[in-house]
């Protein structure tokens, strides 16, 4: 962290730094006059300025999940400051403490308490200051609504910190207010930067410009793995203002405006040497098993498959790169600013301190923006031409050269005792991933294995990772077992679930849905699912109609429990969004590929959920104030597909074992 003196940058006031272990804090203590040395294990820091503005620094980023708002609530709650006085600086590798990334639903369970502790420590520091200045007992001092008060004396935070240059390094063990006493946390405050979004004022990376910058484009091979045999760039180079950058297989252009850049890249004449494709979307599932190490016997197991799908973040990848001497600054929409910094440092053989990555609030990610592809391209072009370069990916580039949610083959089996309880359970996931593979139900004998394999496509994280795939298979097969034993699917789950939190969400969803009173009708079906992942519990009930093979999701109830609720409105929005996205993966999203090319490489070829696909969505949020808040960005998507699939079975008698589920089409299992 090459941060400059806080006070030189921010003006006077109070700085509180939160470190992980208290030993370090005791050794360093606090001090007046500005402490330049940074603790190695810094988690978060905040500054209270002489104007009363509170600035808080965290390495997390905002991608639409409302981290900026929930972290602001954390500060307001513990500092007793108005929301409007708080500024969050997120995802800037020069200014914010190191963070591994905005991934895995970790902002709330991991960063939220850290920020709260920093704010609580800052509040106590203000009390210390007031106690010294006014010469009154600490116990007579109150902090509320941005003011410090003792008897008839009162001062705003700014007044109190005026003329100070005080730093405090504190351990991560400060006491926090219990959820039952929250005043600002736990309520629905509006999105803090909502106005900038509805007015179009917010500048996403895609929107950014810098003076004198050029626009960059990259020439990609026509198929994955193809290598450049020859290049004729004369026509492009003859265009005014165009520069061609050719270094090995990397070919790019820069131009003063984006349409010239587009024309220039189109004018490049390249010959590519393709490689033979190992698999296509038609034969990839047996390919997974064939290429897995220690594959299991398929006998007695039922095969399910899960297609590759695309994240389709509506803001495609984008970056703006600037070099100054040998230091690089890049603005880019990424979930892992520090990860991108490492990538860039490695690519350009720089010390990490020489690279600064800044992430403006970003047009979504869903696990799809972990890497610095556009950042690297912009930086490489900028270095070659000696000017700042902007690189905005097109939708087609985003849907071809980003990475995908892994496809998978999943084989499952189980046996019941005569009373309907599970006796045995076995599940093997080939390629798609281990998340959510372990059953939350009680089973005396079980075997659950992840088998790494080869992927013909570049694959990576996705909202909930393989949680969606594994929940689809487990909860569909649980339904198969329930039907084989003629037990109601709800009763079957409750019979096999001991975990109270799991039982609670299943029961809550069924109650809200009216499971017991559901009315069967021709072409109409009902399904249920439950699950657990990343510290939170989820259950879904679905009502569908199937007419001439067309599935329409009529109604979804989702019960969700992630401990104490931080912001009910934003949590509800997150759950509804997961339901919407889950419908896409359940019913129509799939990447078709052959000959090392993506066939479904644009929105006219890749269907995502739209208004007309939406059911009535009802959410039940179970607020467990006795439990620490867990994340909510991922788990709410996991139970959609099986609830819908179970409802399709209920309506048609057809068990669909492939995602996406298309009635009438035979499952394409291995």
């Amino acid at each position: 962290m090459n941060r400059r003196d806080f006070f030189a940058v921010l003006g006077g006031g109070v700085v509180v730094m939160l470190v992980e272990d208290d030993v370090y804090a005791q050794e360093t203590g606090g001090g007046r006059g500005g402490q330049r040395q940074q603790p190695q294990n810094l988690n978060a820091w905040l500054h209270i300025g002489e104007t009363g503005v509170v600035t808080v620094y965290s390495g997390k980023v905002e991608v639409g999940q409302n981290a900026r708002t929930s972290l602001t609530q954390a500060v307001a709650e513990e500092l007793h400051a108005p929301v409007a006085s708080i500024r969050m600086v997120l995802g800037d590798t020069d200014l914010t403490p190191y963070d591994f990334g905005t991934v895995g639903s970790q902002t709330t369970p991991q960063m939220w308490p850290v920020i709260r502790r920093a704010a609580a420590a800052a509040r106590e520091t203000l009390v210390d200051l007031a106690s010294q200045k006014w010469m009154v007992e600490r116990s007579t001092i109150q902090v509320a609504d941005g003011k410090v008060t003792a008897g008839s004396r009162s001062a705003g935070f700014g007044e109190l910190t005026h003329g100070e240059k005080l730093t405090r390094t504190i351990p991560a063990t400060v006491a926090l207010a219990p959820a039952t006493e929250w005043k600002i946390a736990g309520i629905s405050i509006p999105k803090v930067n909502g106005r900038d979004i509805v007015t179009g004022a917010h500048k996403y990376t895609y929107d950014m410009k810098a003076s004198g910058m050029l626009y960059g484009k990259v020439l990609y091979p026509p198929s994955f793995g193809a290598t450049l045999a020859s290049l004729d760039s004369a026509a492009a180079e003859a265009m005014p203002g165009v520069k061609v950058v050719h270094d090995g297989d990397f070919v790019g252009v820069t131009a003063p405006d984006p349409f010239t850049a587009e024309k220039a890249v189109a004018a490049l004449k390249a010959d590519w040497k393709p490689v033979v494709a190992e698999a296509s979307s038609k034969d990839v599932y047996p390919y997974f098993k064939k290429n897995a190490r220690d594959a299991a016997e398929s006998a007695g197991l039922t095969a399910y498959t899960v297609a590759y799908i695309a994240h389709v973040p509506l803001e495609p990848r984008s970056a703006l790169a600037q070099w100054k001497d040998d230091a690089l600054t890049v603005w880019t929409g990424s979930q892992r600013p520090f990860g991108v910094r490492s990538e860039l440092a490695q690519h350009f053989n720089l010390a990490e301190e020489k690279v600064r990555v800044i992430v403006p609030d970003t047009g979504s990610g869903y696990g799809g923006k972990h890497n610095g592809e556009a950042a690297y391209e912009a930086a490489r072009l900028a270095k070659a031409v000696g000017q700042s370069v902007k690189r905005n990916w097109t939708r087609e580039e985003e849907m071809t050269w980003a990475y995908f949610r892994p496809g998978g083959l999943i084989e499952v089996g189980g046996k019941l005792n005569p009373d309907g309880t599970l006796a045995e359970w076995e599940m093997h996931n080939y390629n798609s991933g281990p998340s959510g593979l372990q059953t939350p139900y009680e089973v005396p004998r079980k075997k659950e294995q992840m088998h790494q394999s080869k992927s013909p496509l570049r694959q990576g994280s996705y909202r909930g990772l393989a949680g969606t795939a594994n929940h689809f298979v487990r909860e569909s097969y649980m339904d198969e077992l329930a039907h084989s034993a003629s037990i109601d699917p709800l009763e079957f789950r409750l019979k096999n679930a001991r975990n109270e939190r799991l039982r609670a969400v299943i029961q809550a969803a069924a109650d809200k849905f009216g499971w017991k009173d559901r009315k069967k009708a021709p072409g109409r079906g009902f399904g249920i699912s439950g699950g657990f992942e990343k510290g939170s519990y989820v259950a879904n009930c679905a009502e569908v109609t199937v007419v001439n093979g067309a599935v329409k999701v009529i109604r979804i109830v989702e019960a969700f429990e992630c401990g104490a609720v931080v912001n009910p409105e934003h949590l509800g929005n997150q759950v509804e969004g997961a339901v919407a996205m889950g419908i896409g993966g359940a019913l129509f999203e799939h990447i078709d590929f052959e000959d090392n090319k993506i066939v479904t490489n644009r929105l006219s070829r890749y269907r995502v959920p739209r208004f007309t696909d939406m059911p009535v969505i009802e959410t039940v949020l179970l607020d467990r104030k006795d439990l620490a808040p867990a994340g909510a960005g991922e788990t709410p998507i996991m139970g959609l597909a099986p609830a819908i699939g179970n409802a399709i079975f209920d309506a048609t008698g057809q068990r669909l074992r492939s995602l996406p589920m298309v009635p009438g089409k035979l499952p394409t299992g291995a």
Partner: protein
Amino acid sequence: MAKVTELDINGSRRRVDADPDRTLLSVLRDDLDLTGTKYGCGEGQCAACTVLIDGTPTKSCITKVGAVAGKRVVTIEGLAAAGKLHPVQEAFLEADALQCGWCTPGMILGAVGLLQRTPHPTEADIVSTMNGHICRCGTYQRIVHAIQAAAAKGGRA
């Protein structure tokens, strides 16, 4: 063809120097820095690039700038009058009808156009008219509620 040299944007005449076959989206974003209008797909599939042309919601990524010379173009930057949000903008905030916000300007302008033609739309009207817009974060239900709320308050503005 002659270059386009002037556009009527948000009630002002703006000087431009653009080939007529360039997209309106590119001219707005790249030449005029009106970046509230978003690129999402470049083929008219997502409607993130929606602007109003003579009051009609139009996908600017598949509209040539030459076709809008002399017409009134309204972008998201021109919707709030003198700092006061349009009722549809207010309604989107109140219904929390957004997450990442990339689709939001296009959604709002699509909704404004809808309410201008149909001040009291049914839910089915809203769903069918807005169906060209993609919200990948999946806030559709909230967007429907926001448009209903704006209509109830006379959101035609």
